[in-house]
């Protein structure tokens, strides 16, 4: 039972981790708490659904389609909204509120196009892999594999590629990075592409793991994802990865009977927030965040 819960936790946690990196990078580079990210995940899942169910493409191709579609939409939003707001020097509150507006518009647009009914990807829902005493559905196995690849790729990109290093530099100290001649606009476009790709992938994976999804599901995932971002330290990409995995494992393990009888599974989302609040009381800047005044 314990190992099964641990594996379930790693599955949920890796979806949170991928999504949290997308949110955290955008915050680090643009100082934007992107409330529209949950609905961008929904958009990714529905774009994948369009490719998979409507066009009849294989799941892998559909996932790639979802990632590209979400990346294009993210870049387009930067051109029509976020760039003009940057030029007007909108502050933290303004950006936050504008992203709430975008979230509303995006979700309602998805509802208009696809309707409110739950959808499912066309994969074998009944295939189960048995490894010792752990049972993994096809969706869970696919999630673990693709999430591991994605997390490694993001980690390598940030630590090894010059663009990745520039991004971390900008996230650390924007003014200093600009002074050393970084092409800020290019970095911003790359950031939105990564944010869109992670949203598309996380949306498709979450849709696979949950087996059905509706236009509201991304918004419901957004709060645990934010909790993961905050837990890791806002703006720290590695922290977001760790925060996502910790939260996923902690929420699943909390239902384990060996842990004081276990928490009622309906309270799993609450566990995520309790973990977050306790962690913030011990480390107000997040697990990987730097201590700052203010």
């Amino acid at each position, binding site marked *: 039972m314990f190992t099964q819960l641990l594996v379930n936790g790693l599955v949920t946690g890796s979806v949170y981790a991928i999504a949290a990196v997308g949110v955290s990078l955008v915050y680090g580079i643009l100082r934007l*708490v992107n409330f529209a990210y949950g609905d961008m995940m929904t958009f990714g899942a529905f774009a994948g659904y369009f490719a998979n169910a409507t066009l009849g493409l294989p799941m892998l191709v559909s996932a790639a389609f979802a990632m590209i579609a979400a990346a294009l939409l993210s870049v387009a939003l930067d051109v029509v909204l976020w760039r003009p707001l940057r030029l007007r020097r909108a502050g933290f509150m303004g950006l936050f509120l504008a992203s709430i507006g975008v979230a509303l518009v995006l979700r309602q647009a998805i509802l208009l196009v696809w309707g409110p009914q739950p959808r499912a990807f066309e994969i074998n829902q009944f295939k189960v892999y048995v490894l010792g005493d752990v049972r993994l559905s096809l969706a869970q196995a696919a999630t673990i594999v693709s999430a591991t690849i994605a997390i490694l790729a993001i980690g390598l990109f940030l630590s090894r590629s010059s663009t990745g290093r520039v991004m971390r530099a900008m996230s650390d100290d924007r003014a200093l990075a600009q002074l050393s001649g970084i092409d800020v606009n290019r970095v911003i476009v790359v950031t939105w592409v990564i944010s869109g790709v992670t949203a598309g992938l996380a949306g498709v994976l979450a849709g696979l793991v949950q087996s059905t999804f509706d236009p509201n599901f991304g918004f419901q995932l957004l709060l645990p994802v934010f909790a993961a971002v905050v837990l890791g330290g806002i703006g720290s990409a590695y922290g977001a990865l760790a925060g996502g995995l910790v939260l996923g494992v902690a929420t699943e393990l909390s239902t384990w009977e060996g842990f004081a009888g276990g928490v009622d599974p309906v309270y799993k989302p609450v566990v995520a927030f309790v973990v977050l609040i306790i962690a913030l009381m011990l480390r107000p800047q997040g697990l990987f965040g730097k201590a700052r005044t203010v």
Partner: protein
Amino acid sequence: MNVLSSGEFWAFVGVMAGIYTLFTLGLQVQFGLAGLLNFGQVGFMAIGAYTMAILVTKVGWSMWLAAPLAVGAAALAGVLVGLPTLRLRGDYFAIVTIAFSEIVRWVATNEDGLTGGSQGTINLTGQGTAAQYNGQWERFQRWVGAQLHIADKDVVMLLLVWSAALLLLWLTARLARTPWGRVLRAIREDEEATSSLGKHVFVYRLQALAIGAGMAGLAGCVYAWQFSFFSPDDFQPLITFFGWMILILGGVGRVWAVPVGAAVFGFLFAATRFFDFAPFSYLDSADRAYVRLMVIGLVIIGLVVFRPQGLLGRRDEMVLE
């Protein structure tokens, strides 16, 4: 279209604007005065509404005792939320408060024994018992109506809600001009400078959070009376965002801008229901509901882009930082 000329409909729009005024006034105290990014205001509203309904139906208290206690419970929740989280940076605080409001909604949905669960207050005293918490309120409403010779229940409600709203607006405007209000604004502008003058920043913020939460609790009670039934679904995070939109629509930092923002929002929200000219006439009613929320989203974006200081705000005192 004849519903637009019906007094009943406009009384309803007015009552909702009054409830939103109470709700947003709390945000004005928290953000406009103290600079706190509370994104969980709807959680305090839920605590107010549920405390009142539970005390009346389960404990059998008089509404006149239950309602003040409900407002107190919401304010106390503000203190409890603030104690561990007010030392966090603004953006962290914002996210933790959203999390708080979702926890409240989650508990209300799942603790059937306490709140009636997802079916709402109708199950407060158990499945299928059709619990009622507002008999006393309706008697009071009829009594007020008889005193003023007003037969229409909605008009009485309108008068009651706006009397409460105007009283609180006046009190808040007074409060903002006291030394206490000036300290809060000083904290908003420069926390360290205020703290070096010997003011206990944390305590002032905690007070602002609790007062604002109490106002949301009152909004919750009035909301419960207006609809005589509610469920956890009435306390979606969307309601908090409506409040923020009203705050910014009116003007951050100006107390009397809140009712203006609430009235404009109430009108917008109600009027978009009657978009039955092309291209909206091609849509069915469910699709039109989506379009309404889309319009609200676009208005939020437009406000941030074109008028961040709100309709009545002053650019020099406060724009969205």
